[in-house]
């Protein structure tokens, strides 16, 4: 009974609170009073959200890893009206997208929205005709360890991003020439986004899943285009177009799955003839949402949006929805489809990292690095083993923290420095150590052992095992990822006497959010294994029915290998302490070597020029121009990634079709 109450509270807090908060923010009066009320209302919504999460966590922690039915006010199985509404909602959203396309006067948007409506409308009609749900129908919402992980990430990281926006967005709107009062509307959309994400994560009924899915598409469209200028509108429409394609795939999956289909039902009926086709359609939908190649351009375009939007899209919601769905389907994929998904993911992992090596816009570097990480998550799902799933969960959690942190720092630093060009930010770590330090931390967490992400990469390399193409791409991608973060950090730490033009300081809300995420990211150094044991292995256990634990006390273990996280963390910390202690009072001779022609004795790299007079020695960064086939080959790397990605998608479709043909 108590459990049921807690679950009701969780559903209310996770789904209701953000919607309520959004409505309140929307209705806030303009002027000073509205502005004064903005922070309390937002904080109240976040507090309710946290309470809901806490209730869910209490239930999840109370028993063995399992899947629990969540009582839900709008239960389709109990209310014929609710059932009708849920059946109609995906089709209604598809029609809404048609209207958006018409309003934007974009033929391609209308066409794609119609493409989505084409399977969504018949599915709605069919569901309405089959109004009586089967007697065995359970709750529409399920809470299991994987859902808990996603909820923690969404509420934790997403909540901090909302906090960050409280301070950031008014300044951003003022900078863009808008009324800062728009912040309330902005926050309202962020909260709706979180609610949509929670619905999607908790949904077992496929109709609810589709509603959550399409709502995240809608929210991302609104938020990317929030600034309202030409660039923002174009980027928003592009994001919408890609996600409509994914939505069409999902709607097709829904149509094929039959009436009253549930995720848990799909996963426990491996003999169903249409199952491979449904899974294939869902995998394609997940790939678009996760911005895997060839669908990555929408996420790159979305970079024009404000920093909190980027952080939300990349770290805790939206793209993670795709990864979530893939991980959810992982046990049912089977060898063929699983391999296709793993190859598509590994391809995205390697190629996005190679593309990122050539970028000097910091936000684009981060965006491509996100695509790479999402590729790795797809590999975790495609490999289809408990250990890979557990590693995927670990990766998902710490990627959310580290990437959210990186985006917030880049946003805050953009407001202080006025740029996000890596070459203009050279030496930032020297000029503003406390601003750059969290970014350096995020880079270390993304690239270096023994941080948790390296642990997950290690497990996936081992789990890739004999799948040679996957392992080859993973190895190349791992190196390119390390390379791209080394490039970023290498430019940040250059001792350059030319000081950046810095103006203003980072606000209190921003600092609080950045500090919290930094602590979460840093905990990856020690908490990798306990977390793998606490959430990764239970998720794998519930998904597969059996598991081989990845977390082993304070260390990780997988497939006959062992990653001694705790001892290595001690070594790294000790090493850092020794390095600091030995160099703190070191006397240096700061004059750089300039071929013996320095003008001054200090650190300034000024030398006697060939024509007399002082000249400044400065070096630009190295961005791998022409390294990769762009300049030399017949096909540029960009095009190569698109073509390869489409081939990967075709392989997914083929594997699904073959599976369906074999089943039938």
């Amino acid at each position, binding site marked *: 009974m108590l459990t049921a109450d807690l679950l009701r509270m969780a559903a209310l807090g996770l789904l209701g609170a953000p919607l309520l908060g959004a409505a309140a923010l929307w209705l806030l009066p303009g002027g000073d009073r509205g502005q004064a009320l903005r922070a309390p209302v937002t904080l109240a919504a976040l507090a309710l959200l946290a309470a809901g999460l806490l209730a869910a966590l209490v239930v999840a922690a109370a028993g063995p890893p399992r899947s629990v039915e969540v009582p839900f006010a709008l239960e389709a199985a109990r209310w014929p009206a609710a059932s009708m509404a849920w059946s109609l909602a995906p089709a209604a959203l598809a029609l809404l997208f048609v209207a958006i396309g018409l309003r934007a006067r974009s033929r391609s948007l209308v066409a794609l929205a119609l493409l989505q409506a084409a399977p969504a409308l018949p599915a709605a009609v069919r569901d309405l005709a089959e109004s009586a749900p089967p007697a065995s129908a359970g709750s529409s919402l399920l809470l299991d360890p994987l859902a808990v992980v996603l909820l923690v990430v969404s509420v934790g990281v997403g909540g901090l991003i909302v906090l960050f926006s409280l301070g950031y967005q008014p300044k951003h709107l003022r900078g863009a020439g808008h009324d800062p009062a728009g912040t309330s509307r902005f926050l309202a959309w962020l909260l709706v986004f979180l609610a949509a994400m929670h619905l999607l994560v908790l949904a077992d009924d496929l109709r609810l899943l589709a509603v959550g899915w399409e709502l995240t598409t809608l929210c991302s469209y609104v938020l990317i285009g929030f600034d309202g200028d030409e660039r923002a509108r174009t980027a928003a429409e592009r994001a919408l177009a890609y996600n409509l394609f994914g939505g069409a795939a999902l709607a097709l999956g829904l149509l094929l799955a039959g009436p009253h289909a549930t995720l848990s039902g799909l996963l426990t009926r491996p003999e169903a003839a249409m199952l491979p086709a449904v899974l294939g359609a869902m995998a394609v939908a997940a790939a678009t949402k996760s911005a895997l190649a060839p669908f990555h351009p929408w996420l790159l375009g979305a970079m024009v949006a404000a920093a909190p939007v980027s952080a939300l899209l990349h770290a805790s919601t939206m793209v993670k929805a795709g990864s979530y769905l893939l991980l959810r389907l992982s046990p049912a994929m089977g060898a063929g489809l699983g391999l296709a998904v793993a190859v598509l993911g590994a391809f995205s992992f390697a190629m996005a990292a190679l593309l990122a090596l050539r970028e000097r816009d910091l936000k684009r570097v981060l965006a491509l690095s996100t695509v790479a990480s999402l590729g790795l998550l797809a590999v975790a799902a495609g490999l289809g*083993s408990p250990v890979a799933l557990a590693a995927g969960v670990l990766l998902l959690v710490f990627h959310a923290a580290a990437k959210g942190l990186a985006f917030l720092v880049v946003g805050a630093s953009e407001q202080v420095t006025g740029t996000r060009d890596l070459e203009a930010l050279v*030496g930032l770590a020297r000029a503003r150590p406390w601003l750059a330090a969290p970014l350096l931390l995020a880079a270390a967490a993304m*690239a*270096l*052992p023994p941080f948790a992400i390296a642990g997950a990469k*290690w497990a996936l*390399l*081992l789990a890739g*095992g*004999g799948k*040679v193409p996957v*392992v*080859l791409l993973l*190895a190349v991608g*791992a*190196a*390119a990822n*390390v*390379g791209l973060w*080394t490039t970023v950090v*290498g*430019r940040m*730490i*250059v*001792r*350059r006497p030319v000081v950046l033009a810095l103006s203003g300081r980072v606000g209190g809300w921003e600092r609080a959010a950045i500090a919290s995420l930094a602590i979460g990211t840093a905990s990856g150094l020690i908490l990798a294994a306990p977390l793998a044991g606490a959430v990764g292995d239970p998720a794998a256990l519930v998904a597969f029915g059996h598991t*081989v634990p990845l977390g082993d006390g304070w260390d990780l273990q997988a*497939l*006959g*290998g*062992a*990653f*001694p996280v705790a001892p*290595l963390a001690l*070594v*790294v910390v000790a*090493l850092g302490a*020794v*390095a*600091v202690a*030995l*160099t*703190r009072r*070191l006397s*240096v*001779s*700061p*004059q*750089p*070597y*300039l071929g013996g022609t320095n003008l001054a004795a200090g*650190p300034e*790299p000024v030398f006697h020029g060939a024509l007399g007079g002082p000249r400044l*020695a*400065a*070096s630009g*960064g*190295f961005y791998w121009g*022409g*390294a990769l086939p762009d300049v030399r080959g017949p096909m540029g790397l960009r095009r190569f990634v698109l073509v390869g990605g489409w081939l990967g998608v075709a392989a997914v479709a083929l594997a699904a079709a073959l599976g369906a043909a074999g089943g039938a």
Partner: protein
Amino acid sequence: VIVQMVLVVAAAILALAAPLGVGIALGLDRQATAAVQRRIGPPLLQPWYDLTKLAAKVGRPADRLLAGLVLAQLGLSVAALVLFATGGDLVVAVLLLGAGHVMFVLAAASVESPYAQLGASRELVLLVAREPLLLLVALAYGQAAGSTLVGEIVAAGPYLLELPTLGVTCAVLLGIALRKSPWDIATSHHGHQELVKGSTTEMAGRWLAAAELGHWYDVAFVVAVIFLAAGSAMVLGLLLAGLAWAAALLLDNAVPRATWHGALGMAWGIGGAGAALALLMASLGGGGLLP
């Protein structure tokens, strides 16, 4: 248990002492090169003389952060080799070695000097060139042995017949570790070339010695990876390492310095092909990591 602990400690000490061997091997290398080029060459212990002389000098690097990063590089390289020698996970050891390499690139990149910056970017190319190869070699051993733990890999060896193409990858890796041409883009021992060790330009005295020592540990790691092909047959391992070194030396004297495109392409093309074939053979051979 006590015997095991003693063995582990002995292995760790052996790993710490690895530079002794690397110093002599480098001396041999220089003498052999001199012989090929019909010069007299330096004495056998010249690398040691150089290192100890550097270490004894007053150390005044150009920057504190640089000095700290050099220490981090040394420490991580040592940690990688110790993890290897004590029978730890080979893939983890490779990742640690890569982290050490990252620290070195950052150390070189931390001072605004054109030479150091150029050296740093070239080191980065080598980092990206060799990291996948090391990972693939480790995974190929793991596939063949059924575990990525060095202890298990040693026990299940030798792999000469099982993974013959891995030798090609190992020779490429040694060539890169020794910065021999065509992979000497980031460094060079020859004064007439356009950039001599740009990456170490701003290091000095004992800090330069520390960077060099870290590099020796790095070389020792690659040699140890080659030893693995012999399983527990140490003599065979020595022979293989000698062969790989000879191949690298031959290549060094036969092939000019590549552009960095070429260095990357050759590393990934030649080394990657060898590793991919080895992986394929390991997985066809019915091996594989135990679930």
